């Protein structure tokens, strides 16, 4: 291989890149779904992801409900929170400029993070892996849990993409992205569809949070640090494109990992450099079907 670069290091960073990419993909997909229908940039996505992780931690430490229970319960709780939030915060300002949606979701982010920080402090809380151990591949050690995260999130992305692009329910969503009034004039309850779509996107963020808990530390700021990258992913992939968000998520995770191997100094910057290049060269997003921005 390259001088001084071991295959262990390369494969190790590739795996980390794939793990990070899984989270980028899941989160930016949810963001893209919400943006497509509501034109709201859901700034609270990171806080909702953090909420998922926190609920998993709370379930374990107060009720003794384990990871597998949390994997089901936490997204549902976060989605329910999303329903309340859509009804109370987003719906009343739906007719205003969509910038208000961004500001409102940012406000909710600050409130959630503030409350959790006040209650549990800002240091990370540990959450032990539900599948300890792993397999030695010879050139590297692969923890089972990381394998699970990569496979499960890949399945979630694929499933969501299929649901939206290849089912009748998905065709309602795609049509409503284009022209909600006409879809509603067909007798489809579009206001409810908006609420449920928001809840679904937010539930995905909560699910990602549960997946993340055993890998990263559970802390109030775990979402906001990730969100900066997620926004870059969504900008690069194209704001409303589901497949674009998924592919860009994985791609950037891997690129970031590889940069750590070949040019570690740039690892934290590479995504933003790509974002700037993408904005200059293809402002509508790499995977957007629309021409122009």
């Amino acid at each position: 291989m390259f001088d001084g670069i071991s295959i262990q290091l390369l494969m190790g960073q590739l795996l980390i890149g794939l793990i990070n990419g899984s989270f980028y993909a899941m989160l930016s997909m949810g963001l893209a779904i919400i943006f497509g229908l509501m034109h709201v940039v859901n700034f609270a996505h990171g806080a909702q992801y953090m909420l998922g992780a926190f609920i998993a931690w709370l379930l374990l430490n107060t009720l003794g409900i384990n990871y597998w229970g949390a994997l089901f319960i936490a997204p549902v709780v976060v989605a329910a929170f999303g329903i309340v939030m859509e009804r109370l915060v987003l719906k009343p300002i739906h007719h205003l400029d969509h910038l208000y949606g961004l500001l409102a979701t940012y406000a909710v982010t600050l409130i959630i993070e503030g409350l959790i920080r006040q209650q549990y402090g800002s240091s990370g809380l540990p959450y032990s892996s539900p599948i300890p151990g792993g397999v030695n591949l010879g050139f590297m050690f692969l923890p089972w849990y990381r394998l699970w995260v990569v496979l499960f999130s890949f399945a979630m992305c694929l499933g969501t993409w299929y649901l939206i692009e290849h089912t009748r329910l998905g065709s309602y969503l795609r049509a409503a992205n284009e022209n909600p009034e006409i879809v509603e004039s067909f007798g489809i309850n579009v206001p409810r569809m908006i609420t449920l779509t928001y809840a679904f996107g937010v539930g995905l963020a909560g699910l990602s949070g549960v997946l993340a808990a055993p890998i990263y530390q559970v802390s109030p700021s775990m979402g906001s640090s990730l969100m900066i990258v997620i926004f870059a992913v969504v900008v690069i992939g194209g704001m409303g494109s589901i497949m674009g968000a998924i592919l860009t998520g994985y791609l950037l995770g891997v690129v970031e990992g590889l940069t750590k191997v070949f040019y570690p100094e740039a690892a934290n910057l590479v995504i933003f450099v790509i974002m700037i290049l993408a904005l200059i060269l293809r402002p509508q997003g790499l995977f957007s079907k629309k021409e122009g921005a």
Partner: protein
Amino acid sequence: MSSEPTRAPLLQVENLNAWYAESQALHGMSFEVPEGELVTLIGRNGAGKSTTLRSIMGIVRKRKGSIRFKGEELIGRQTYEIARRGIAYCPEERAIFASLSVRENLGLPPVLSAGGSTDEELLEQFPNLKARQNSMGTMLSGGEQQMLAIARILRTGSRFLLLDEPSEGLAPVVVKEIGQQILRLKERGYTILLVEQNLKFAQMVADRHVVVEHGQVVDVLAADQLQANMGRVKTYLGV
């Protein structure tokens, strides 16, 4: 010059006012659509014809007065609730979904009540669409898009159709074809409220004409009265 409808009205619009934000577009519209009839709304550009259809559908939300369908008040209802009571709407801009195939566009409206056409029946009835069913919606010609826009609302089972200028921007042969399709719908018992600026087209299909100007009804003419009043109607239309 107005004539009294003989059958019970399916739709009764009374003193309808409608606004876009602060600007008022309808100023006390009143007219009726009897069951089984084809009624046109004619009038010049900006008269308020499309706004009338959008107000009935609840897409224009800010409205006052009364819109009764089968005796039930529609003002205050949401668009999807109005649709579920048996009204189907085909907009002026056709609104074919670009991200959906022809087949998906056709299959999009849900079946709301029994008596709608199946996708297969619709493809038989509109043969141009059959050949193009796997194309994306916007790859169709203007005429094909109009056929698709009409065809898909027949899926729901709704028996009252609001059609906004189906002849607009189409070649004469295509206009004729669409006219025949609309006549066939009428024969099958659909009640239709049709917005039209093409007088020849309106004459070919309608039982009654409602003339709209400045957001008000200024005249109602039975089909057989149109010819005798052509001079006046043409002044209304500014042609």
